[in-house]
């Protein structure tokens, strides 16, 4: 599987990582060679799975934890607040979720 530079830039946009132009080219080649390697999995006939007991071995998650809030000790709470990159009192400050409308481009 070969990726194009456009593919790599699209993936970078989806996953919110910025790449320089030279990184995009390097990643295109490196990811393509890794994908070429893992493409061998396509040759494995996984139909054999149906004829065998699957997953008889441990471990599996031992059920789900109940979705109930537990109190946070004050010192841990203070440390979490202190780790905020930007804050207003006890609130986490983030950039606005919705972007300001960009100025109309002139034709």
């Amino acid at each position, binding site marked *: 599987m070969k*990726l194009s530079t456009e*593919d*790599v830039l699209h*993936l*970078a946009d*989806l*996953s*919110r*990582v*910025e*790449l320089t132009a030279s*990184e995009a080219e390097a*990643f295109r080649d*490196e*990811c393509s*060679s*890794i*994908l070429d*390697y*893992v493409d*061998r*999995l*396509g040759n*494995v006939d*996984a139909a*054999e*799975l149906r004829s*065998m007991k*699957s*997953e*008889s*071995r*441990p*471990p*599996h*998650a*031992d*059920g*789900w*934890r109940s979705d109930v809030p537990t109190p946070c000790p004050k010192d*841990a709470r203070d*440390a*979490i607040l*202190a*780790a*905020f*990159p*930007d804050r207003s009192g006890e609130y*986490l400050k*983030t*950039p*606005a*979720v919705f*972007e*300001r409308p960009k100025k109309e481009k002139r034709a």
Partner: protein
Amino acid sequence: MKTTSEHARTIGELSGALASGETSSSEIVERSLAAIREKDADIHAFLSVFDDDARTEAAHADTRRSKRMGRGPLDGIPVAVKDNILVRGNACTAGSRMLGDYIAVEDATVVKKLRDAGAILVGKTNLDEFAMGSSTESSAFGPTKNPVDPTRVPGGSSGGSAAAVASGMVPAALGSDTGGSIRQPASFCGIVGMKPTYGRVSRYGLLAMASSLDQIGPMATTVDDAELLFSVLCGPDPKDQTTVAHPYEPDHAERRLRIGIPKQAWGEGIDGAVRDAVMGTVRRLEERGAAVREIDLPWSDEALAVYYVLMPCEVSANMSRYDGMRYGIRVAADSLKETVASSRRQGLGAEVRRRILLGTFALSHGYFDAYYLQAKKVQTLIRTGYEQAFRDVDVVITPTTPTVAFTAGEFSQDPLQMYLQDVFTVSANVAGIPAISVPSGAKDGLPVGLQLMGPWFKEASLFAAARMCEDVNA
């Protein structure tokens, strides 16, 4: 073996010297801190050292002992922790600029367990960024050197822990292992490193890389020390739902060891001297009565490919939390999206971003079935292969790595070649089974590691077999 406390290096020797009153925990910790001061400027195994806290804790351990309230063989023994495991009130960088200033809010479960056993935490060790790498070269804070030969890498990603133990700065350390990150550096540095069964040790407080594969495990100079540490770390934890309650009992019974040598693992790509060094140990085990047979591990050739699909998929999901919002660095830009992207650009190195892209690709619409789903199916085939193999043998033996420690920078331009380093170790993560690397000779003075893999939750027989390897090479 009787040694004086001056030369004591193993936990067993140190706790013996403590019990006899020959030395104190404060002395042992001072020696450890002095060794770090003396050697770490060259080796760079540590990212932070807890001088003051370690001294205070050592004094407490000495007081406990004087009141006959000691907590057992780990009480008062210095231990280092890989810097992707949280130690409350201290930095936890994961080797990344993203977390350069991050201070841990609480202790990881394994750190709590170490403290409860009386172990003294002396510092946090270097690693490939977010544990992604096989050489400790991708740490944002500079590489760690191999104490055996400083021109070579210590392996990775737990390279700092391996180097700290191998150079005698600490008798033992914790590492984490997603595809070989404990065993490969143990092999390169000539120590013992063990990855437990998936579900044995809580990962609460470990910065997640690939959650279906990650395990925390011990690194030490002897099998006994690794087992002691393992017995302290293991056990169920309500904060990690994958952990199960399987009581652990060491196994010292004499029995005939049945060894499987997978024919798939001895083909091309292995250094001849590595093969000979590992086969030498197998032959000595055979001379002492072990039954050795060649076994077939169908699909095990596919384990590396399975790993390099599943791991990046989970990485891309786990790394999404590093968005510059609630912790870590934030690089302000015009919009939220651009702020996230530029924070990740500044905070995350090339290897981490490469894996995020690969995972994003393999999980994307139109490719999910061909990559992720197919890899999960082949993973089940691989597990089944091991299950069948362990009906006839107690352990499977391979080299830990295809070569001895490589030179710094050797694979920096070729990630796929770096990934091929993991060819023998990833199987245990993909199958979820326990595995251990023990020293097995050398090539031109560079340590060779022998890997033993065992059935799910049979760590006791794995350690017993590893002790036999140690004995025949003593």
